[in-house]
């Protein structure tokens, strides 16, 4: 058997990228939690996050022929989810219903899901307060800042992955991340007591 025919056999054995999404159940089992987590943190609405998660997988399956395998399936799915969030949050209807939605996610609801690492009740209370402040701070970010913040610190993607997912240059991703972190740090520490302010790191005091 020649080396040319061996290569051809190997190529046949590797499934085509467009077939990656043929088994939709397997893709859902692998990536649903990640996509749903990103969506619920982005839109902050249970029902809408659920709908957009289903829509993400439906679109991926519908456009499976166009998946060339030049990125990971997770990256491709996340890109679809980001586009869906952008399309939905742009509309005035979304902004209107967000204010009146009964399924909106509140900071206290997220805090109820805190893992119990705290050794004392006081530590648990402080952790809860910290989380609520971060949740509110993330809500104040711009759409792009929130997206890169979530991808970096919740989905734990590195900078090149975030750039590939969002389609932004790495320098832009970094810029958004720096601004997002600055906002989160400022807003989550502004409500601390004067005593805590005195104990702060010198560089942080100088930034205010």
């Amino acid at each position, binding site marked *: 058997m020649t080396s040319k025919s061996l290569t051809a056999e190997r190529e046949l054995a590797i499934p085509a990228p467009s077939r990656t999404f043929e088994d939709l159940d397997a893709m859902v089992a692998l990536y*649903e*939690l990640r996509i*749903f*987590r990103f969506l*619920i*943190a982005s839109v902050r609405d*249970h029902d809408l996050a*659920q709908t957009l998660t289903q829509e993400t997988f439906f679109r991926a399956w519908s456009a499976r022929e166009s998946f060339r395998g030049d990125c990971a399936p997770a990256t491709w799915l996340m890109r679809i989810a980001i586009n869906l969030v952008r399309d939905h949050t742009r509309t005035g209807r979304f902004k209107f219903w967000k204010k009146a939605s009964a399924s909106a*996610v509140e900071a206290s*609801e*997220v*805090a109820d*899901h*805190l*893992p119990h690492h705290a050794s004392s009740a006081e530590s648990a209370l402080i*952790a809860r307060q*910290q*989380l609520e*402040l*971060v*949740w509110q701070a*993330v809500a104040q970010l711009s759409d792009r800042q929130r997206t890169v913040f979530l991808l*970096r*610190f*919740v989905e*734990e993607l*590195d*900078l090149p992955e975030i750039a590939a997912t969002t389609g932004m240059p790495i320098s832009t991703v*970094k810029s958004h*991340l*720096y601004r997002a*972190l*600055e906002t*989160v*740090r400022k807003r*989550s520490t502004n409500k601390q007591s004067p005593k805590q302010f005195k104990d*702060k*790191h*010198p*560089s*942080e005091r*100088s*930034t205010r």
Partner: protein
Amino acid sequence: MNDLTTHLTAAQLDGILIGDTNSAALAHIESCPTCAAELDTTRSSITLFGEALTSMAQNERSRLAPRPTLIDSFSAKRPIRRLTATLALAASVAIVATVVPFGHLMPPPAVKTPPPVPVSSVQSDEALLNEIDQQLSASVPAALAPLEDPTDPTGGQTSTTPSNANNKKD
């Protein structure tokens, strides 16, 4: 940078969190407990955020996902309950069948055709119409004759005056 009297700026600390690494900043963090503590504070807040989100998403997914194992165990281990449930379902269907009218299931009513009109009634109607026509085309009755010609100076007064006079006398 390893001078402990000079601490890292907020941007340098953020750079470490972002992954925009700077070897000098990393070296300083290892030797400066103040900066390390500051970095840990921000990092722990963000980590809490991620953990809580993950936990919430997992709970939500498990709540929405179907639970075939529970259904299987219910049907396999509890035959009496299954029989009870079947009987309850049959009873409820019977009650609904009794209470709810089935008008919508019946065939639509036939279009009512008007009953044939008897010939005698047609003839009597025609006779009545002819009589009305004759009355309309007839000459003015005698009692209303003075009104027919308003130019007659005596018309109308002769017939009404005596009666008025009689009324006044009474």
